[in-house]
């Protein structure tokens, strides 16, 4: 090795051309958000009112909280389809506790613990038994909501204490709701965890190559288990919020939330195949989803049409990033 030239210096990173920032997925989302915002403000005279903008945020905060954890899970190459069912089961358990005379702190604890427990159950099935998460969580989706239906039938739990209403109906300052504040704080925490910690780094690595991660001493099973627990936890928190906002529990509560949360994640630029994505994208996507559904609501579009819209959006956002990448790589064959 004596006759080899001195090793070349490799720079940390190259200066990226400005175009890569302009053509980033997040930039595209900002443009879309501004466009929809503009259209909405022309479509309805009520849209620009601070209070109606505040109402708008309730359209995405609960699903957005779930989407934050779901983003990490999807980046790691897994998925959880049972999140809405977890919301229903946690809400049902809170309802039962209310009948037994539980106070607000107990209710919140029950919501969170049930969510966490359901998430841990999913995580155990996936990591211990090595089952594919899509199958496991389709199963637990029916299981959790099934339990809620058995307990409630066509009844509804009501009579939540007045102080419990704060979580879904309260405001921290002026038009800023507790839900919005919680979502923004949670987004900051998730951003930090995903993009600034070694845990987040391992999540990305697992999504790209779980086998190489295992060989590299990354405890793949443990990290995936934690991610399922987090997703359950966020579903439990969402359950507290939605139950508090509605003031009642029916077994059909939060129906279809799993699709909306996944749509937010994918629209936010997270690869459905795992390994790539950003929290900023997911937050922007949550805002866009809120803007769109609220805009459609202002225009008196019926709920069934909205669900068609969500379905179409999900397909488009899964197809778009793939087409976008091909276009950028110049092999649009």
């Amino acid at each position, binding site marked *: 090795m004596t006759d080899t030239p001195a090793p070349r210096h490799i720079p940390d990173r190259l200066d990226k051309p400005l175009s890569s920032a302009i053509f980033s997925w997040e930039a595209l989302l900002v443009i879309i958000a501004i466009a929809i915002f503009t259209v909405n403000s022309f479509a309805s005279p009520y849209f620009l009112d601070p209070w109606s903008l505040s109402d708008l945020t309730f359209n995405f905060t609960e699903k957005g909280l779930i989407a934050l954890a779901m983003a990490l899970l999807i980046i790691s190459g897994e998925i959880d389809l049972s999140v809405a069912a977890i919301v229903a089961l946690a809400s049902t358990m809170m309802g039962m506790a209310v009948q037994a005379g539980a106070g607000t702190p107990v209710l919140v604890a029950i919501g969170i613990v049930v969510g966490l427990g359901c998430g841990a159950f999913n995580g155990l099935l996936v990591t211990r038994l090595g089952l594919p998460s899509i199958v496991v969580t389709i199963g637990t989706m029916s299981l959790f909501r099934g339990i809620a239906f058995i307990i409630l039938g066509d009844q509804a739990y009501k009579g939540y204490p007045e102080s419990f209403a704060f979580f879904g109906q309260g405001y921290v300052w002026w038009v800023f709701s507790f839900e919005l504040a919680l979502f923004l704080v949670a987004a900051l925490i998730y951003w930090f965890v995903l993009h600034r910690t070694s845990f987040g780094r391992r999540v990305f690595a697992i999504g790209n190559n779980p086998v190489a991660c*295992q060989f590299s001493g990354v405890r793949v099973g443990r990290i995936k288990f934690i991610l399922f627990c987090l997703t359950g936890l966020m579903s439990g928190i969402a359950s507290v919020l939605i139950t508090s906002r509605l003031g009642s529990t029916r077994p059909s509560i939060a129906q279809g939330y799993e699709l909306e949360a996944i749509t937010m994640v994918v629209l936010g630029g997270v690869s459905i195949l795992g390994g790539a994505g950003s929290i900023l994208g997911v937050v922007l996507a949550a805002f866009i989803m809120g803007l769109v559904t609220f805009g459609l609501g202002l225009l008196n579009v019926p709920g069934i049409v909205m669900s068609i819209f969500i379905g179409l959006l999900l397909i488009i956002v899964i197809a778009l990033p793939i087409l976008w990448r091909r276009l950028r790589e110049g092999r649009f064959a």
Partner: protein
Amino acid sequence: MDTTAQRKMETERPEPSGPSQSASPRLTLSGISKSFPGVRALHNVSLSLYPGQVTALIGENGAGKSTLVKIMTGIYQPDSGEISIDGQATTLPSAHAAFGHGITAIHQETVLFDDLSVAENIFLGHAPRTRLGTIDWRTMRKNAREVLETMRAGHIDADARLKDLGIANKHLVAVARAMSIDARIVIMDEPTAALSMKEIEELFLLIEFLKSEGKAVLFISHKFDEIYRIADRYTVFRDGEMVGEGLLKDTSQNEIVRMMVGRNVDHIFPRREPKIGAPVLSVSGLSHPTEFDDIGFELRKGEILGFYGLVGAGRSEVMQAIAGITRTSRGAISLDGQPIAPKSAADSIEAGIVYVPEERGKQGVVIGLPIFQNVSLPSLARTSKSGVLKLAEEFTLARSYTERLDLRASSLSQDVGTLSGGNQQKVVIAKWLATAPKVIILDEPTKGIDIGSKAAVHGFMAELVAQGLSVIMVSSELPEILGMSDRVVVMREGRVAATYDNKGLDAETLVRTAAGIAA
């Protein structure tokens, strides 16, 4: 032999043209250039392939060979340059178009379908149909058997799942596929990298057969003995440019090496003065239900212990057990006199044993992550504080190890997937060294990498043991085993067949022991 495949071949009327005859080229690439962001992969290169001849494409890792193969198979489009087939200018806008021109590639890590049968793999995309348009399974099986028969590979069951076949037989299936589509240009990208000596001989017979059928063959290999055995012509690439071509019989090995590296390589293996100390790692009675039995050996400080054996002798499985990746049924491992029982790779890394796996793509690199994140992956606990990443430390760690290994990359933030095989291997080795281990197990560390990178890896191994590390090197390459090891353990069928001091040890002894032939 009145088989379908045979008839197809006959209609082509191969002209038996030796290298001395100057036939017109079947495929000509001229003035080909291709750039990727930050990297100029190919600059104005040319290549000609002649019917009935084997052309060897030679170059270090990163010289642009893989890029050229991707251009020839329609996966990449060149930025400029011309492609002509049988003298007709053409383009290869897609893999399908290349396929249509009869261009087929057999890769080092075979890209076939593990869960399909041999027959399905051979005829995928051009299966015989019944009148209803459904797949004619019976004809397909019959044709598959015939094609395999023609290639003297009748021992392969056309109904077997591909995953149940060894790598050598998978290659045969890939060649059978090439035969079945009536391929006229066959590209072999390091086909011998994972084969045993006997399997390589079989492959060579097959290449001779392809030659006699008038196919134009491009043969990519790092092994000179193979190139001189099988190829007629050569083309040498260096740093994305063509630096020489001609007939092999007129060119010496040294001349080609000079073209490749641009300098003389005097000796491949570093000379070293081993300072061997006390035992570091000792293994006794290590057993696995199916893969290996009663394995015992000792590794001493500052030692390189070679593990030789045929493919399938259980060497990798033993190493993965020591590294905590596979479980064992019995046996004891101790490190520095302390018994250890690693239950995961994380445990053994913590203890100070690391395993650099053989399957670089599957087990080594995390494609999709940049170089520096690959290097820091097992060391994240050290490059972070209370779980919070410290990027500056990660870059420092990555830089110090990748530069020592002479990595060629435009930046440390480059996706490791955009690097050539040899450079990916450097990233993988850097990743493991960055954990500051006591024992490093290298499984086929120079498999499929060029002479320059090989020398870098060998030199680095010598440096490591000089610093007091202990190295286990699993290798199927005899020169590497003999050139690098202080002692050699030979494994056969899951057991330790013999352990030798590498003093006056000769290749024949090793081969005989590995194959179980009495002296």
